[in-house]
């Protein structure tokens, strides 16, 4: 029987959302190609995860090894190399996360299997596997096909597929002996770290004024600070602002920063890379101000202003102050 693998991702005692997103997409694809959906679970003391995954898949392959306790691409790769070589799944889905980015390309290279990364959709067209990817910061989509192979590896962009409630599968839990014969000595996990919390917790704010690359220069910060102050909101930002050191880490909204859900989110000079959008798309009301009418942020916003922020923001600030007095 053919198999379709989904590699379960977990961290600090929790299965991550991407796992269930992949299982949902994996179920759809496995039915199409008449394959069994198999969840692959690697780690240490992970029985509870296996039970949960069994609701979503035909089978759960579990390898329990202390050397797999924390994610280490080297150890994971060795185990998966054995598993995929032996069982030859038609497809292996891995999350396009910090975990998958570190693992999938080297795994595919060692297995000599074609790989497509950061996909927002995929489908079998006959024997051929085709994927949809986003390029140029989300401004263009690409349809691409993978070199024909009996087995493929694809990494899926998180928060692209909605995880569905499973029809309980009561999948078989199959324990497999760890193929790791020695310790991984070239690379070692030391610890997790979380940057110290700052004065402002943007996840608790009702009103967020967020800035991006369009602000151009640190000297322009007062323009947006005044707006945030007038609204009684807090200032947050997209990645480039933190990279430049204009705002601290804990003000970053997005995949690698914070997920926020305020009543009002004003995105100023933010193009709207998916990493940012996935951190703010559930805000109640989103207003985006950007010069570029094609910026992806306008596909997430309720209201859009295609204009120079340095003209709109001061005018908006004045009007809000007038309104309040």
């Amino acid at each position, binding site marked *: 029987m053919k198999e379709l693998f989904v590699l379960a991702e977990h961290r600090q005692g929790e299965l991550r959302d991407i796992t269930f997103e992949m299982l949902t997409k994996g179920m759809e694809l496995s039915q199409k190609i008449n394959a069994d959906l198999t969840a692959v679970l690697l780690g240490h003391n992970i029985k509870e995860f296996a039970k949960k995954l069994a609701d979503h898949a035909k089978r759960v392959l579990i390898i329990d090894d202390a050397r797999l306790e924390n994610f280490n691409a080297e150890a994971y790769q060795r185990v998966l190399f054995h598993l995929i070589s032996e069982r030859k799944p038609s497809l292996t889905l891995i999350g396009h996360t910090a975990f998958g980015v570190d693992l999938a390309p*080297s795994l595919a290279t*060692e297995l000599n299997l074609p790989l497509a*990364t950061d996909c927002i959709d995929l489908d079998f067209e006959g024997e051929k596997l085709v994927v949809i990817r986003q390029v140029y910061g989300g*401004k263009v*989509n690409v349809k691409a096909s993978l070199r024909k192979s009996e087995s493929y590896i694809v990494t899926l962009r998180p928060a692209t597929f909605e995880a569905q409630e499973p029809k309980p599968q009561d999948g078989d839990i199959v324990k497999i002996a760890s193929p790791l014969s020695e310790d991984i000595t070239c690379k070692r996990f030391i610890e997790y770290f979380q940057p110290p919390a700052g004065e402002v917790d943007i996840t608790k704010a009702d009103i967020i004024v967020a800035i991006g690359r369009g602000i151009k220069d640190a000297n322009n910060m007062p323009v947006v600070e005044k707006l945030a102050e007038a609204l009684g909101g807090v200032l947050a930002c997209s990645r480039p602002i933190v990279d430049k050191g204009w705002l601290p880490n804990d003000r*970053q909204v997005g995949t690698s920063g914070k997920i926020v859900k305020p009543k009002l989110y004003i995105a100023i000079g933010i193009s709207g890379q998916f990493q940012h959008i996935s951190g703010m798309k559930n805000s109640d009301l989103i207003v985006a101000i950007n010069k570029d009418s094609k910026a992806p942020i306008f*596909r997430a916003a309720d209201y859009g202003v*295609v204009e120079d922020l340095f003209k709109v923001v001061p*005018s908006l600030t004045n*009007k809000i102050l007038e309104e309040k007095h």
Partner: protein
Amino acid sequence: MNVIVCVKHVPETAEAEIAIHESGKRIKTEDLVFDINEWDDYAVEEAVLLKEKLGGSVTAVTVGPEDADSTLRKCLARGADRAIRLTDKAFEGSDSYAITKILYKTIKDLPFDLILTGTQASDDGCAQVGVVLAELLGIPHVTMVKKVETMEGLVKVNRELEGGLGEVMEVKLPALLAIQTGINEPRYISIMGIRKAMKKEIKVLSLRDVGLTEEEVGESGSWITVEKMFIPPVEKEAEILTGGVDEIATKIVETLRAKGLI
């Protein structure tokens, strides 16, 4: 510490109007400005910082046409000692995997302790080159690196995860690190630096020079082939507020008032 840094010459598209080429398989690049990939810019700076601290050399390598020399000049101006450009008609249509094979063939014979790449490129966003290159070279790798500390025979790195979380890893040298933006502050390049860089040699190598066959590169040597490019379909679109600046501001205020937000 001998460091090799792999860089990519990419079009600046964040604020540019993008049109699909008639072939449907690429974008029109004629009116776009090209520069070093943002992630690679941080990787080059990190390489130069390591050299300044520990001695050794920095070699910048790219796969690209003659235009890519401006990106290599930027690396040289910032402090790289050598630059190599890999160019061949046969390289056209190469995906990340085929590009990485070209880099591998060139780099495997060079002396190095550390290889740096960007975590991803702003054009195709594949995030593959570094990790595939490490695998081909048989050395360990770490991606999304936000801090590098060198120790005897190894590096200790901070790696970015999701939700503000990070992890600390130790990796034995030689190793490959894929650098995340924000790791440092890429230095300002002086006119003097650029002039000096103009005088340095850029070594140019072809398919034959690196010892690959035509089948190993281009579309035939790739994992994926572009079938078509298209502008993303509109699923949700903001209501665009029009009018003069003050008029727009008034409309926003009215909306906020109606929703009880001011």
